[in-house]
């Protein structure tokens, strides 16, 4: 697979003139990031606030210049070819302020479409097509100020796609959105990848990254701590998966036998006589099927089984510890 984005030793130190004059310490936002992002994939940038994800995106979009190192996006150097780069990449942020609130969705898109060199009929058609694509046709002539957060975010995606970019950068695209709105944005991202586009997405949500991203990179204090496919990283850094089971009709003796057979099993009783079990399972282990078999053999009924998803912080802590 060919490479859409390639960075080498990319670094950014913020040292404003005023700060230098006051002899204040500069802020290292990104430090020696070397990455290759394959074309036609979704690449996730993960990490806590201030890890350098947004700085990385802004550097790749040519909005800020690197202190040292190089980055090529769609084959273009971000430092020297930023104007050509802007015709090939799109940026979607969660900042609602980046639109004109007194203008309608259509007027906003038409203005930005002109800045992307779209003219006349082609511009109107493209705006119409994108409004339909993000499900905002019926609201096209409503003011942006009347939009919900989810609608604003979908309009931001539409704006990012006006010039049909090869690469789309999304900075926390589902921040503050309800599950339905999140789902719609996820659908739009999946559709882009089906059309061969490359998507680079910064997010705080590991489950979002797991659902959407082919590969992810963990950022911490400007460094890339780990990079790979989400499952690959989980296998590398997580020594056990965790499951919860909701079980009813299990007698006292059967419960005692079960806890004796599986020492890592934790039991939480409920008032209605049912129990919730928490079971850590080593990768490749068969503890889950053995526990399920024993419950069923003892006459118990398994009402629910759920894999506990690791939160970003959990996996992140493990990566740091590793």
């Amino acid at each position, binding site marked *: 697979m060919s490479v859409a984005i390639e960075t080498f030793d990319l670094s*950014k130190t*913020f*040292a*404003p*003139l*005023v700060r230098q004059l006051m002899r204040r310490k500069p802020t290292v*936002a990104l430090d020696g990031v070397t990455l290759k992002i394959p074309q036609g994939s979704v690449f996730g940038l993960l990490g806590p606030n201030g890890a350098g994800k947004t*700085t990385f995106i*802004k550097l790749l*979009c040519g*909005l*800020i*210049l690197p202190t040292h190192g190089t980055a090529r996006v769609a084959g273009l150097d971000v430092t020297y070819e930023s*104007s*050509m780069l*802007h*015709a090939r*990449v*799109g*940026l979607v*942020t969660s*900042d609602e*302020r*980046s*639109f*004109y609130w*007194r*203008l309608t969705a259509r*007027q906003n898109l*038409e*203005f*930005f479409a*002109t*800045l*992307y*060199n779209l003219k006349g009929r082609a511009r109107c058609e493209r705006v119409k097509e994108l409004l339909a694509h993000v499900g905002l046709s019926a609201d096209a002539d409503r003011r942006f100020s009347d939009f919900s957060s989810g609608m604003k975010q979908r309009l931001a995606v539409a*704006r990012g796609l006006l*010039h049909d970019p090869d690469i789309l950068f999304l900075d926390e695209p589902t921040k503050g959105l309800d599950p339905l709105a999140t789902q719609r944005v996820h659908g739009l991202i999946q559709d882009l990848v089906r059309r061969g586009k490359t998507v680079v997405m910064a997010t705080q949500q590991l489950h979002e990254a797991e659902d959407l991203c082919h590969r992810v990179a963990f950022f911490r204090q400007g460094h890339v701590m780990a990079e790979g496919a989400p499952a690959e990283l989980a296998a590398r850094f997580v020594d056990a998966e965790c499951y919860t089971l909701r079980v009813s009709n299990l007698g006292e003796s059967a419960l005692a036998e079960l806890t004796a057979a599986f020492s890592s099993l934790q039991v939480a009783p409920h008032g209605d006589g049912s129990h919730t079990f928490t079971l850590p399972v080593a990768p490749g282990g068969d503890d889950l099927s053995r526990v399920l078999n024993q419950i069923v053999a003892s006459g118990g009924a398994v009402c629910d089984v759920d894999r506990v998803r690791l939160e970003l912080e959990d996996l992140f802590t493990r990566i740091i510890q590793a």
Partner: protein
Amino acid sequence: MKVLAFLWRDWLIESGYHLSFFLRWFGILFNVFVYYFLGRLMDTAVAPALAPYGGSYFAFALVGIALNGYFSLGLSTFSSNLRQAQMTGTLEAMLMTPTRLSTFVIGSSLWDYVFTTLNVLVYLVVGALLGADVLRGNFTSALVVLVLSVITFSAVGLFAASVILVTKRGDPVTWVFNAVLTLLGGVFYPVEILPGYLQRIAAFLPVTYALRGMRLALLKGYSLAALRREVTILAVFAMVLAPLSLWAFRFALDLARREGSLAQY
């Protein structure tokens, strides 16, 4: 054309604020009447100083405040539009498009220039209806003086925008020029009534020649040949300040991109 998209955007936004839109026009009419009555009071009192400009304070002040609109605009429009885009968060979205920052800066100020031109026309037409002899001058000379003045003041405004790009707030360039403009520029009174040492300072200001040239063109009908001193000095200001301000703006832009503060406020 991209700059026209900015003009259309600003028209849509401005006309969306109905009350503010109409109040601005009413404000212009009230201003004209204030200077009309002031003129009736002052004509005889300051007649000797007004003699070179036709003797009417109303006509003198009308041309002054009309042109002052362009001066103030040139000084502040670039920096205020840039600052507003930083504040509203639209600057970054625009910088993501293949649009040069200079196109954005010029495009964003276009509506202000159109609105100011309409203001000036209203000032002159209403003034003429009230008896000011402002529409029988030499319009070719007036246009040349106006173009050179706009270039000169826009160049100073671009310096101000450069400062805003780096410091975000507190633009000393506009502040100094506005203060000097009000005191020494001769917008509301002829420079000739100032003490000698202030007149010598005023001689170094482009506004002195812009206002004098415009008044002599509109109120006395001076030709370009008769205004060669004012036009030459304004042309020198324009030729020196325009490239310098473009260089300063480019330098500030590079600095802001290096610092990563372009869209910060």
